[in-house]
């Protein structure tokens, strides 16, 4: 056994407590690093990997038209520039409310026959779970209905479409590229032939829709191709319901939440790593102080600084290696729980697999950082003279002034002595201040997510327009429908609107919301810069699109659709998580320059005084207009379903961040107080000898950390209150949210601060209880 190894073992035995504390912090860091890497390298790319495996193609076009004969000849001409494509005929419901768990999900729904749905070559749809014994009226639903909706094979599922109710049983779940997630706007399902025929019979003149998955030739530009195809279809049938999107947009909307989680995890991890670096440096510095005599003795008998440094490094290296390997192992135990929440949102079959990159990054980061900070902190060993070390070093206190004079201070004796201890342990208190502050910040972020995605969902951020409900009529009945809405006594604040797609030049497209009067929108926050459009030459475009293309407020932007073009002034920038941040808003008068409003369907966003009036109004619309009602959304119910995955993630974040914060503060206080009690054991002996009780010394010691903790909580609570939204903005800007206005509840903030102070005090008192073991006689005689 080498001499360094013998010494390393002896260091560990002598510093067992603090070694275990640092070991736990290292384990925590490597676990979090590995977890966030697993989320980044394995979980997050799952949707993309699955899309590739299922031969997802470049994009999907689907349209419903009673005029267009979408035969091979037509499609070949339409899809000029396509390398390959595959057509599927299926039923399509553009806006449908479906049961989803205990709530309702409003989304577009594609319903196909089992045979045609599962036999595609491009963008294959796979059955990922099924019960062959289920027969009769059955349905295969997207896998998200299992992961997020809580359904199981064999469950009953009741689908209501245009007044007809279908009592179905779930035969299985589908793994699908384009129709698997509510965030991507389309659900894909398939039903038994009998059910399909019944649905087909009810669908009316439009008949089956055409779904085309395609792969573009290499030299074809996506934007230009999209505009040409859309314009052609709209020219051929202005009433056609057309939608076209590329795989990248589907994947982006399907995975954005998991990216937020992975990002947040990574941010927390980096801070825990920072805390660990601080703690290792502090511990080594304490180690040198506490072992001065031993170092002196070792040097005196002939050990070189290099030998001693090598032995300390060996100890920390051994701790780092074991802790990081264990941390990685633990991360694989925890990963399925976190991944299940992420997957619930993506709706992709997934099980955590071993990630070599995650393992290497987690272990090497912890080990390399440990080596670096250990070597850095050990530099002082070289300067220690053996004789000085044997005398435990020359005391070189530099007290410039006596800050808390016992004869002058208005504080009680215990409080005064606490303050003295605090001022004497500046470095430890600075560490406590910084660590507590960081943890407060992350608790506030978790609180923000919990408040805005779970407790009181911030609909203005998640949706373009918030309302209690939406009802939409087809072109034939839209005027009569509007009159009915206006005359309905319980309905108020009626906003007429419709959605379509417009083009910018020949390559870019924007999802356009046309309001009768955009300035009457409930969600005034959507316009974060400038104003909402009110004149016929004004438009709002999304900030993300403006940034990408260099547009500024006041610039002119030429928009076109179906061969008509008009130059608008950008009077405002809007933010939206939807449509990959490609969105625009204008008034009907402005839209009339390029769109024929007569052939556009109308939807009405409305509010009511009482929640139960929403459903009674929608029922009245159904009774009066029957199949002419093309959209009916009870937002109270719908929002519940849409938020299920957000709620899970927000709750998970709150619990995880809360636990990590508590654990980190616990470990930090453990290490700091342990070291403090050790270095002040002689003083505690003196205090006890002259009559101080253990209880008062414990309170003094625990109390000496409280000013730093309280100050940190106060300062960082205020800072976090103002910085949390800009921080979230850094993450959300990638999804089109340019200015975050998330609500941070003050009572929640106070609760976090209070909990942190109380917990810290409790931890500190528990740690300081080791003072009880200091026996004055032994301590003083031992000297």
């Amino acid at each position, binding site marked *: 056994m080498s001499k360094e190894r013998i010494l390393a073992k002896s260091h560990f035995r002598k510093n067992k407590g603090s070694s275990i504390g640092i070991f736990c912090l290292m384990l925590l860091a490597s676990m979090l690093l590995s977890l966030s890497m697993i989320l980044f390298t394995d979980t997050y790319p799952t949707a993309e990997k699955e899309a590739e495996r299922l031969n997802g193609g470049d994009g999907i076009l689907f349209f419903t038209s009673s005029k267009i004969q979408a035969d091979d000849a037509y499609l070949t001409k339409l899809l000029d520039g396509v390398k390959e494509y595959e057509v599927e005929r299926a039923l399509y419901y553009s806006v449908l409310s479906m049961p989803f768990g205990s709530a309702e999900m409003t989304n577009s729904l594609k319903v196909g026959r089992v045979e045609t749905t599962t036999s595609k070559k491009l963008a294959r749809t796979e059955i990922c779970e099924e019960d062959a014994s289920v027969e009769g009226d059955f349905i295969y639903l997207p896998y998200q209905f299992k992961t997020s909706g809580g359904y199981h094979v064999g469950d009953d599922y009741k689908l209501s479409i245009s007044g007809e109710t279908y009592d179905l049983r779930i035969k299985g779940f589908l793994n699908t590229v384009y129709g698997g997630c509510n965030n991507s706007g389309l659900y894909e399902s398939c039903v038994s032939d009998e059910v399909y025929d019944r649905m087909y019979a009810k669908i009316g003149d439009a008949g089956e829709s055409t779904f085309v998955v395609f792969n573009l030739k290499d030299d074809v530009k996506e934007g230009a191709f999209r505009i040409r195809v859309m314009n052609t279809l709209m020219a051929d049938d202005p009433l056609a319901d057309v939608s076209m999107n590329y795989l990248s947009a589907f994947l982006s909307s399907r995975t954005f939440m998991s990216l937020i989680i992975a990002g947040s995890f990574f941010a927390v991890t980096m801070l825990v790593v920072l805390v660990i670096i601080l703690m290792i440096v502090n511990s080594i510095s304490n180690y040198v102080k506490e072992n001065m005599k031993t170092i002196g003795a070792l040097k005196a008998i002939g050990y070189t600084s290099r030998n001693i440094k090598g032995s300390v490094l060996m100890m920390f290296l051994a701790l780092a290696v074991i802790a990081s390997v264990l941390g990685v192992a633990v991360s694989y135990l925890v990963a399925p729980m976190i991944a299940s929440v992420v997957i619930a949102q993506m709706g992709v079959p997934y099980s955590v697999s071993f990630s070599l990159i995650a393992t290497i990054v987690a272990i090497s980061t912890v080990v390399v950082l440990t080596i670096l900070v250990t070597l850095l902190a050990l530099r002082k060993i070289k300067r220690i003279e053996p004789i000085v070390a044997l005398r435990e070093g020359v005391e070189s206190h530099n007290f410039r002034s006596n800050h808390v004079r016992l*004869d002058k201070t208005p504080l009680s004796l215990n409080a005064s002595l606490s303050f003295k201890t605090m001022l004497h342990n500046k470095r430890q208190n600075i560490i406590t201040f910084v660590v507590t502050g960081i943890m407060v910040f992350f608790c506030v972020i978790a609180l923000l997510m919990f408040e805005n995605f779970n407790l009181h969902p911030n609909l203005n951020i998640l949706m373009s327009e918030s309302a209690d409900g939406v009802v939409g009529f087809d072109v034939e009945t839209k005027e009569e429908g509007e009159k009915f809405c206006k005359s309905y006594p319980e309905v108020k604040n009626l906003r007429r609107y419709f959605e379509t797609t417009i083009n910018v030049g020949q390559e870019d497209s924007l999802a356009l919301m046309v309001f009768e009067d955009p300035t009457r929108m409930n969600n005034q926050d959507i316009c974060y810069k400038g104003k909402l459009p009110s004149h016929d030459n004004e438009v709002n475009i999304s900030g993300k699109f403006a940034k990408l293309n260099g547009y500024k407020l006041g610039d002119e932007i030429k928009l076109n659709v179906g061969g008509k073009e008009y130059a608008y002034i950008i009077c405002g920038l809007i933010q939206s998580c939807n449509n990959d941040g490609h969105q625009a808003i204008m008034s009907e008068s402005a839209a009339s320059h390029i769109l024929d409003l007569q052939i556009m369907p109308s939807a009405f966003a409305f509010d009511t005084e009482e929640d139960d009036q929403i459903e009674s109004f929608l029922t009245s619309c159904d009774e009066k207009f029957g199949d002419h009602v093309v959209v009916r959304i009870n937002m109270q119910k719908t929002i519940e379903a849409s938020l299920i995955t957000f709620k899970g993630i927000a709750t998970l974040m709150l619990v995880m961040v809360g636990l990590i914060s508590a654990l980190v503060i616990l470990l930090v206080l453990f290490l700091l107080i342990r070291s403090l009690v050790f270095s002040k054991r002689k003083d505690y002996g003196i205090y006890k000898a*002259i*009559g101080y*009780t*253990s209880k008062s010394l414990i309170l003094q010691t625990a109390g000496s950390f409280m000013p730093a903790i309280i100050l940190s909580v106060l300062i960082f609570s205020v800072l976090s209150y103002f910085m949390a939204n800009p921080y979230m903005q850094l993450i959300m800007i990638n999804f089109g949210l340019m200015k975050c206005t998330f609500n941070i509840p003050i009572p929640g903030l106070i609760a976090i601060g209070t909990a942190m102070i109380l917990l810290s005090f409790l931890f500190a008192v528990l740690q300081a209880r080791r003072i009880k073991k200091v026996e004055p006689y032994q301590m*003083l005689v031992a000297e």
Partner: protein
Amino acid sequence: MNEIIKTQKLCKTFSNGGMQQHVLRNIDLSIYEGDFTVIMGASGAGKSTLLYALSGMDKPSLGDIDFAGKNITKGTPDELAVFRRKNCGFVFQQTYLVDSMSVLDNVLAAALLVEKNKKKAASKAKEVLKSVDIEESLWNKFPTQISGGEAQRVGIARALINDPKLVFADEPTGALNSTTGKDVLDVLTKANEKGQSIVMVTHDITSARRGNRILYVKDGEIAGECQLGKYVSGDKERHLKLRDFLGGMGW
């Protein structure tokens, strides 16, 4: 004379692995009010162990100690700490002042345990510091900024501040040179002349001369006792009597 401390069959045994070491054996002893009692003995005889057992700082293995009417062998550590505040003062060989506190605060930290009125406590602390010849210019200095002799006198001030029934001094001059050691002994003698009871452990004959009662500890027992009467400077007969006693004890 009134007894402050009375011990009965006081034993202290240390265990080390399977071995037992009997440091104090069945000691019956009384300490009297107003006395300057000196405990002497060879190294390892059990002097310091006896001193700290008498003060309640260390618990005996067997036997009873009655200190000012209280059996201090039965109290919890915190009860004994509260008891020490009013009844005991300590002077150690290594001064054991708290380095992070000024001279005045070191004394006040003890004073405020008993006297809650800060003004009164501060005024008394200053008075006691003056009485041990610590000048005002040193009050706001820290222990590392004053000499060893000064630090020991501050330690004595801290021991005296609460007018304890008994001051325990463990080799108070052991770490000092002869001049500063004499100063410290003068301070203790002066305190004793004013009525302060003192128990001092020492192995130095010059220091022992200050006591009026000498106890000699040998192999954990009180091997002998010598009454010298009150200290008078330059009393050669007293010195000879002490030397004879110690010689008889095999010192």
